[in-house]
């Protein structure tokens, strides 16, 4: 599964990619913000993991942009963010995010949420 990892922090991208490899997802594409992610997004991307707070284009705007994209209407989106205010999480879901992880995360939670999103997408298909 090809995963697009979007975070403005190089440290976080590295941790996410490493964690993904550890749980069996070795094919990752990295983007440093929402705008970069939109440019790199194509039909080959099967899963998107994005931060919220990023320059140029936020994760929330990225989710909206992907949902408006011909290839992104049903791509699973997992948001990984420090934001944990109820209203923010609701806004993320309304923007098209499928599941939400609060930073700092554990690899176990990352795996659980990816599995949940994939199984949810499979059930909806």
């Amino acid at each position: 599964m090809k995963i697009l990892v979007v975070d403005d922090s190089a440290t976080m991208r590295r941790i996410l990619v490493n964690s993904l490899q550890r749980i069996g997802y070795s094919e990752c594409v990295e983007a440093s913000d929402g705008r970069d992610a939109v440019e790199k997004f194509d039909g080959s991307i099967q899963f998107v993991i994005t931060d919220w707070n990023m320059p140029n284009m936020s994760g929330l705007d990225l989710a909206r942009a992907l949902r408006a994209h011909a290839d992104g209407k049903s791509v699973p989106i997992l948001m990984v963010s420090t934001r944990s205010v109820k209203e923010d999480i609701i806004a993320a879901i309304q923007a098209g995010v499928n599941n939400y992880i609060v930073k700092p995360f554990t690899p176990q939670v990352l795996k659980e949420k990816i599995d949940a999103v994939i199984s949810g997408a499979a059930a909806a298909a």
Partner: protein
Amino acid sequence: MTMNHKQHSELLYDSEATLRLVDSAIQDMGELGGDETPRSLEQRLMSALTPDPALGSVGLSDALARGYADIVGVLDSLRQSRHLLERASVDRIHHTHDKLREVSDATETAATDILNGLDRANTMVDDLDAYANTHGEPDDRASSVRNTLRDELFALMGHMQFQDITSQQLNYASAVLTEMETRLTNIARVFDPAAFSSAPSVILLSPVDSNHPVTFDPNASTQNRAERQAVADAIVATKSGT
């Protein structure tokens, strides 16, 4: 240049003393006008400035000259206040802002170095695995030790998330300082009406570097991760109907 406590006290004392003198002068002007009823400052000033044929021009001009001299004194004190406020507060904010950036940069560099070190350590564990596959395990515990070591290295990498969170906290602190600086500069300008239309004498902090725009979550925290995740899970379950 910074303003110490003694300078603060002296400035405050001078300002108060000058304001008292002005008030006294204004009251004198009011008395010259012969009106005993309490009036507003504006009324008293207008009264003092209105020629009174009964008093003649000499008494009024003396009072006005004294009032003018006192007001000039107050304005000088206020200008000094503005200058000291700018220097003491804004310089200190600049310094703190720079320190926060320094800490943020140092943390990021350290995090990168640590991650590089962890990568190298992982490669070494892989080398040990390859060696064991080629030459056989040196003893019964070797494989288990390598796996435990790999788990530990992976866990350490996960802990490096603190860098992203503290970086956001530092960016938030910098943004607060920038806002404080702007407000203090505005207050300093109010102290000196002559400076209203002039540019600030200090260089304002730039919260956003156009090459490196900064975003942050003001509530970013490393605390109560499990509880906050539980809140997110409950909302996701409700909203997505799972």
